[in-house]
C-alpha cells in the first residue's frame, strides 16, 4: 500500500492503495464516491467510465496509481445541479430506465460533444458502442446526444 494523490473533479485527494487497485475501487471503497459503477470488471461494458484528461477511460481496469496527477472527472463532478447540457438533454429525453449505465453513457457523451459539436448517428454509435445499456435505451441516447450538442451550440 502506498499513498497516491488523485485529482478528482478538480480536487486533490490522497488515497492509500495497492499498486494494482483499479481507480474504480479507489473511488468506491476508499473515497465513498459511488457514482462510478462496477459491472463487468474487464473493460467491456463502460458502466465505470470516467474522463481522464477529457478522454473516456474504464475505471475498472485502470490502476489508480497509473493516473495519479491527471484530471479525473467522475459523474459526481459534472454539474451537481444537473445543468450540464448533457444532463439537461438526458432529462428532457427521459433516457434512463434502470439508470445504472447512464453515468458512463453521460460522460461518454460529454467527451463526444467536446470533440464534435454536431455528431451524426454514426458518430454517436461509434462513441457509445463500448457502453452497454441492458434496458435498451440506445434509441433515446442517440436523441439526447444530439439535443445536448444543440444545447451546447446554443441552438436548442
Amino acid at each position: 500500500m502506498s499513498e497516491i494523490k488523485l485529482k478528482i473533479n478538480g480536487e486533490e485527494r490522497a488515497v492509500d492503495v495497492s499498486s494494482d487497485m483499479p481507480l474504480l475501487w479507489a473511488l468506491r471503497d476508499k473515497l465513498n464516491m459511488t457514482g462510478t459503477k462496477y459491472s463487468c470488471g474487464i473493460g467491456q461494458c463502460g458502466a465505470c467510465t470516467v474522463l481522464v484528461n477529457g478522454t473516456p477511460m474504464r475505471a475498472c481496469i485502470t490502476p489508480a496509481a497509473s493516473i495519479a496527477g491527471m484530471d479525473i472527472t467522475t459523474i459526481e463532478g459534472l454539474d451537481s445541479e444537473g445543468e450540464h447540457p448533457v444532463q439537461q438533454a438526458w432529462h428532457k429525453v427521459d433516457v434512463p430506465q434502470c439508470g445504472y449505465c447512464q453515468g458512463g453513457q453521460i460522460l461518454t457523451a460529454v467527451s463526444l460533444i467536446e470533440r464534435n459539436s454536431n455528431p451524426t448517428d454514426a458518430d454517436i454509435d461509434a462513441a457509445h458502442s463500448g457502453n452497454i445499456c441492458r434496458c435498451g435505451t440506445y434509441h433515446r441516447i442517440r436523441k439526447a446526444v444530439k439535443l445536448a450538442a444543440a444545447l451546447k451550440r446554443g441552438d436548442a
Partner: protein
Amino acid sequence: MKTQDNINRRAFLKVSALASGAFMIGVSYRSTAYGKPHEGEKTWEPNLYVRIDPDESITIVSKNPEGGQGIKTAMPMIVAECLEVDWNNVTVEQANLDDRYGRQVAGGSRGTPDGWDDLRIAGTGAMVMLRNAAAEKWGVSPNECSAANGAIHHKKSKRTLTYGKLTTLATKQSVPDAKSLKLKSRPEEFKILGKRIPGVDNKKIFTGTLGYGCDTRLDGMVYAVFEKCPSFGGRVKSANTEQLKGFPGVVDAFVVDGTDDLKGLMPGVAIVAETWWEAQSARKQLQVDWETIQSDSTASYQRQAEALSKEPGKTLGSVGNVDKAFDKAHKVLEAQYYYPFVSHANMEPQNCTAFLHPSGKMELWAPTQNPKSGRGLISKTLGISEDRIHVNMTRLGGGFGRRLTSDFMVEAAWIASKLDRPVQLQWTREDDMQHDFYRPAAWHNLKAAIDKDGKMTAWENHFVTFGNNGRTTSGANLSPKHYPSGLTPNFRLRQSMIPLKVPTGPWRSPGHSAYCFAFQSFMDEIALAGGRDPLEFRLDLLKQRYGETDFNTERAAGTLKLATKNANWGRKMGPNQGQGLAFHFDHGAYVAFVAEVTAQPSGQFKVDQVYAAADAGPVLNRSGADNQVEGGFIDALSTSFLEISFTNGATDQSNFSNYNLLRMNQAPSISVDYVQSDYSPTGLGEPPIAPATPAVTNALFAASGKRVRSMPLGKEGLYI
C-alpha cells in the same frame, strides 16, 4: 373518526394525525385488511401513500421496487392526478419493506393493475376530505367547492385555501366510503396521467448521487466476495481459508456449509476485507476442493431432446381430433423450433448489504424485486424471526426477474451473522452470469394442417422442456390454454421433460418471451404455405372461436391493425428488405410489432425501423410506457443473439466478452403507438418482449427467404 366500520369494503381509508399537524391517508389492501394484523401491532395501521405538510409540500410514497420499469414515477402520478396537485410540487419517497403495504414486488407486471384502484382511492379520498374541510371552514356545501393545483376553490365567493392550510381540519373529516368516490378513469379526464413525465430519480442518476444496492455505504462497513462451486450444487470439502486470512486487508475468510436449496444459501467460501478489491484479490489465491453432485451439459440436453421428440410425450390439452385433421389436410407443415437458455445479466451484479445489530436485529439494504421473499428465506435459513429482519429497498440496476430470487440476500445475511460490522456482499460479473436462474431452453415440435383455402385446421405442439419429478422447472411451463388454443378446430399440446440440475427462473415475461418466437414464426410459415398474407391470416384466425381463448381477440386484432397501419404494411420494399409481423398477449397487455430489416446475403442484417402498437388500457406515463416498449424490443433483439450453455454442470459463459449484449450501433429506431382501450391499465414491463424476436425473424424471411427456427441467431449464420 370513522375508521373501522367499513371493513368490508375492498379498500378503506384511514386518517391519523401527525404531531406536525399534517395528516396522512392511506389505503389498505385486501390481503392486509382481512389478514392478521402485523405482529407487534395492536390496531390496523393504514398503508400510507400521501403526506401533505403545512408548507404545501406533497409527499407520495412508492411501495414497489424500482428497477427501471418506471413504477416509482407512474404510480405516484396516479395519486397526484386524483389528489389534484401540481406534479412539480410532489416528492416521491421509496417505501421500505413494510407489511402494511401488502404486495411489494416488481414482478408479473402487476404493479400497475394492483395499484390502479387503490392509489386512485388514496388520492381521491384525500382530495374529498380536503374539500370537505374547506367547505366546513367556509360554511358552504362541499358540492360548491372544487380541487385543483393543491388547493380548494369556492368559485361563487372567489375564495381559495391551499392544502397546507387545511391539514388540521382535514384530519377531523369523516372518511368517505371508497364506493362513493368518483374515480377518474379515462384519458380525457387526466391532467398528469398520459403525459410524458420524466423519471423522478433522473437528477440523482445524472449526478451520480442515486444509491443502488451496491452504493450503500455504512460506517465500519467491510466488503465480501462469495465463491460457490462452478458446478451447481457442489459442496465445499476443504478450502485454504486460514492462508487467506493473512492477505492484505482481509478481515475474515470462512466456509459456508449452506443448504441443498439452489434458490437459497448454497455452500461456498466467504472472504471479507476492508475493500472489495482486497477481498477479490485474496479470492484469486483461493483453493477449494469441491465435491460436485451433477454434470449436466447442453450436449446431453440436446441428445435427450432429440430422443424425446420422437416419443408421444404427455398430452396436456386436446381439442377436436388432431390426427384426423392431419389425415384430411390439404397440406401438413412440420418444423422444430429451438431456443437456448439465457441469463438475466443485470447491469448491477447481485449484491446486498447486511448488518446484524448487537440487539439481534438483522438489517439489509437490498436491490431486490421481492423483499418479502428475501426476508422469509433469511428467517428460515438463519433462524431469525421475521419481525427482527428489516429490509431497506434500494433502486435496482435492472431486475428482469433475476431479483425475484433472494439467494444474494441470504448470503449477505449469513456472512453478516459471522461479523460484528456491516458487510456488503458484491458478486463479480462472473458470479452473476454463472450463478443465475436461467430462462430455460426448449424445443417445440410444431405441426399444422391447412385446407385448400389456406385455413389452418389443426395445430399441434410437442413441447420438449425441462422438469424434475413430473413438474416443469421454474419458467419452463406452457399452458394448453395458450394461443392458438380456442382459435383452431383441432388443437393438441404434448409435453416431454428433460431432468435438469441447473437452476432456472422467471426471465422477463417468463415463457412468453421464449415460445412466442416459435409460435409467431410458425404462424408465418402456415400463412405463407397457404398462400396468404401474414397479417390477413392472423386477423382471420382471431375471428373464429373453437372454445375459450385466454385473451381478448379484439384487442389483439386492434394492435395488429395499428402497427401495420403505421408501418404501411405490405408496401413495396427495396432489394434485400422485408417486413415482419408478430403479436402477443401476456400480463394483461397486447403488443404487435412490425420490423423492417435489410438482410445481406452474407448473413449480416440490420433492423431499419420498428413499428410498435400496444394496448395496455389508458397509458399512464407516456414516456415510461414508450421506454418499456422500446427497451423491450431491444432486450429481445439482444437476447436473440445470446446463449447460456453448460458443461460438467457449470455455466460456460462468464462475462460480456462471451455473452455480448446488443450495442448501440446495432439498435434500431422504434416508433410506438397505443390503442387506448377502455380497459383498466396494465403493466408494460413484460408484454413488449415476446413478439419482438419473431417480428425480426419473420422480416428476415421476407427479406432473404431464410426461415430462422433456432436461436441464438449467430449460430444460424446471422449477425447484426
